[in-house]
């Protein structure tokens, strides 16, 4: 594995982790923009724009875009989060140049009015689709609650009302503010020719303008409200808890990842033994989400309504207990082994490395080879994890429940 990076004169950055023995390569355009960079009037525009990027340019019709991806046999998609919009594809090496040409072209979309109106229907349907997925709904509402008053509380999809009201020119104005060359990182992993990559990115993107892009990163004052949303139609009670955590830039992120695994990994964790093993809940997990100058620990529990109060009490007990006494050496060791093994497996496929390499550069302007990442993970001590738990006070969590119960 070799790492290379460069910057075009317009500020666009190109990074590559080169693995000549891979059978494929993956490439992504990481735009540092998302729902946290929106105002209420244009709520959902980042995600809607992600869809519109596939709707063509001056050179390509919407169908041309789709056809060109499929002609390469690419595995491709895009996603929008609170703070990133990422367009990516994986192909066999012979299609490296066509993939970059295509991704580079569509990142300057025409945003044609008729495509905009048609795609609005798809967005509205996507919002309805997530309405029928309780876990997603709980996550979205809890983000809004915990980060109320902070840009990270902005909803990624927007609401049916904000999407209906959105105009094509609002989206263009947002694009013109956010899609600066300097706000984009092109990352590639796997069997790549880096010089060719840079040449192709240069060809596709050299005319992109550079302008100043800012982002508000106010301090997070996590709201610790507790909300129960009753929905008599539902069978299970879905409960989520959120509390503050290290950010993506923070060195404590390794300890945070370990903490979440010890408390809430899908096997052998504290929540597993407290809730799943005795079948008090059918799902219980905790994860760490490191974001730009902010972070959150998120815990999900799903239980039958008659066990929901008990499940929540046990979850709180597990969190409080961990804050008091921290992890055992054995727990920490197991969590390290699991995470190291998981990252190794994921890293054996170029696509599995792409987000790690791309976001690592977006957030920290650093490249950490996988073996060194694992090394850093193994250096974390039980004391560091225990201190982290106390520092971030896991028991001061915001709670949101969605299900048949009126109260918990």
């Amino acid at each position, binding site marked *: 594995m070799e790492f290379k990076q460069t910057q075009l004169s317009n500020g666009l950055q190109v990074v590559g982790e080169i693995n000549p*023995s*891979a*059978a494929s390569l993956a490439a992504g355009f990481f735009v540092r923009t998302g729902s946290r960079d929106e105002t209420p009037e244009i709520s959902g525009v980042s995600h809607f724009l992600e869809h519109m990027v*596939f709707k063509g340019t001056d050179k390509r019709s*919407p*169908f041309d*875009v*789709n*056809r060109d*991806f*499929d*002609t*390469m*046999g*690419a*595995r491709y998609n895009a996603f929008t989060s609170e703070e990133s919009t990422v367009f990516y594809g994986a*192909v066999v090496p012979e299609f490296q140049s066509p993939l970059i040409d295509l991704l580079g072209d569509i990142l300057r979309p025409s945003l044609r009015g008729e495509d905009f109106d*048609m*795609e*609005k*229907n*798809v*967005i*509205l*349907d*996507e919002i*309805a*689709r997530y*309405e*029928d997925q*309780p876990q997603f709904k709980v996550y979205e509402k809890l983000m809004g609650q915990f980060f109320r008053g902070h840009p990270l509380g902005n909803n990624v999809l927007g609401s049916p009302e904000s999407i209906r009201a959105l105009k094509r020119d609002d989206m263009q104005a947002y694009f013109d503010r956010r899609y600066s060359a300097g706000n984009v990182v092109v990352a590639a992993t796997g069997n790549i020719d880096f010089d060719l990559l840079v040449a192709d990115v240069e060809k596709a993107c050299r005319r992109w303008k550079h302008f100043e892009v800012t982002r508000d990163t106010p301090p997070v004052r996590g709201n610790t409200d507790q909300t129960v949303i009753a929905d008599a*139609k539902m*069978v*299970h009670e*879905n409960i989520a808890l959120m509390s503050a955590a290290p950010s993506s830039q923070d060195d404590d992120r390794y300890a945070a990842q370990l903490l979440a695994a010890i408390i809430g*990994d899908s*096997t*052998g964790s504290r929540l*597993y*033994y407290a809730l799943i*093993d*005795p*079948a008090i809940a*059918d799902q219980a997990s905790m994860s760490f989400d490191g974001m730009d100058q902010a972070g959150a620990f998120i815990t999900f529990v*799903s*239980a*039958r309504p008659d066990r929901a109060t008990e499940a929540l009490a046990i979850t709180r007990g597990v969190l409080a207990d961990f804050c008091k006494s921290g992890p055992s050496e*054995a727990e920490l*060791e*197991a969590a390290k*082994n*699991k995470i*190291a*093994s*998981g990252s*190794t*497996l994921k890293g*054996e*496929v170029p*696509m599995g490395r792409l987000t790690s390499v791309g976001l690592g550069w977006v957030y920290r302007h650093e490249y950490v080879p996988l073996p060194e990442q694992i090394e850093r993970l193994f250096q974390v001590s039980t004391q560091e994890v225990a201190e982290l738990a106390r520092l971030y006070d896991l028991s001061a969590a915001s709670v949101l429940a969605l299900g048949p119960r009126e109260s918990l």
Partner: protein
Amino acid sequence: MDEQFHIEHLPNGVTLLGQSMKDVSSAAVTFAVPAGSAFDPAPLAGAAAVISEWIMRGAGDRDTRALNDALDNLGCQHDASVVSEFVQLSSAQLGRNLAQAMEIFADILLRPRLEAATFIPARSLILQDLQSLDDEPARKAVMMLRERFYPSPLGRSIYGSVESLESLEARSLEDYARNALGPCGTIVAVAGNIDWPAFVDQAARLLGDWEAPGPAAPAVTAAAAGVTHIERDSAQMHITLGHKACPASDERFYAAHLAETVLSGGMSSRLFTHVREERGLAYHVSTHYHSLKGHAGMFTYAGTVPEKGQETLDVTVRELKRIVEGIADDEMHRARTQYKSATVMAGESTSARAFALAGDWYHLGRLRTLEETIAAIDAVSIEDVLDYVREFPAADFTVMTIGPNALDTSAL
């Protein structure tokens, strides 16, 4: 890519399959024990699902916690699951930890504790899974479609029913499990950074003495088929359709997959273009091929806002049917490239390869090299695909819809 396959048979009926892969440090293993949910005796429907949960709760010298901790310490990304034909235990870990993990997996399959105390929570989790389906109509529709599409009980929901699960008892289920989990027909597939001779020696030592008769073959009756609507006040209308396809062992398998790719392979595919791109009807529309031994189907899903349910159904079905009229050269070229690329990329993952080895062996009785698959894809002509879709037309649909209102299916 140079591929190295290995096959070895144990006298008690276990087949060992292996693929050595260069440049990876992981090794993935899959145990497929032919005691899946289709074998559940009717009154015990859901048995295999409960067993897959129960066998993880203590085995050999280890209780639940010791078992979990041992696997966690080896960094095993493990999963016990159930499909129609198999109880599956799969795990990926560093190759150097495979041998130690194998000792534990052998305990789980040959010496599960199956204690009365762990039975109730194991069953309760499966019951809760079943009940939570009501909160996820898309998943429920797909599951119920398969149940009605395949001859009974081959497509039956792995969960059985609330009644059958509640009637299960620890003693009788333990008896069933100890008979059903047996060596005959069991496939153990391993891929990645492996030492094959050492693996075979160890597997022979661990699994060579395994004895158990295996489950009785199920009595198969005709599929329920037909049109079913479940009324529900959901945000979306969930539409699922099934029609017949050729089984994976059929020589027309590649033609079937190419038809699937033309219809649903990427964003330029027909369903995506005509349902989503041109009309904005549905965020998600797709069709996919699925095969059991001897029976296979093309399963289509579309989710849309209720007002657009009828139009979505009509346009989707029209596209499924229209493929018999012809396929353009460039469409076929794209489908071939997509299919080949997907095959190459799946070949990079040790887990995907272990699954693929087990699947090849089960359906074909042999292992396919990447080269063979690529050549077979290249050999299929447009005429072959058209012959295939004429033979297996989009007709006689089994339909399952969940949403606020029933749709008119008279034109299907």
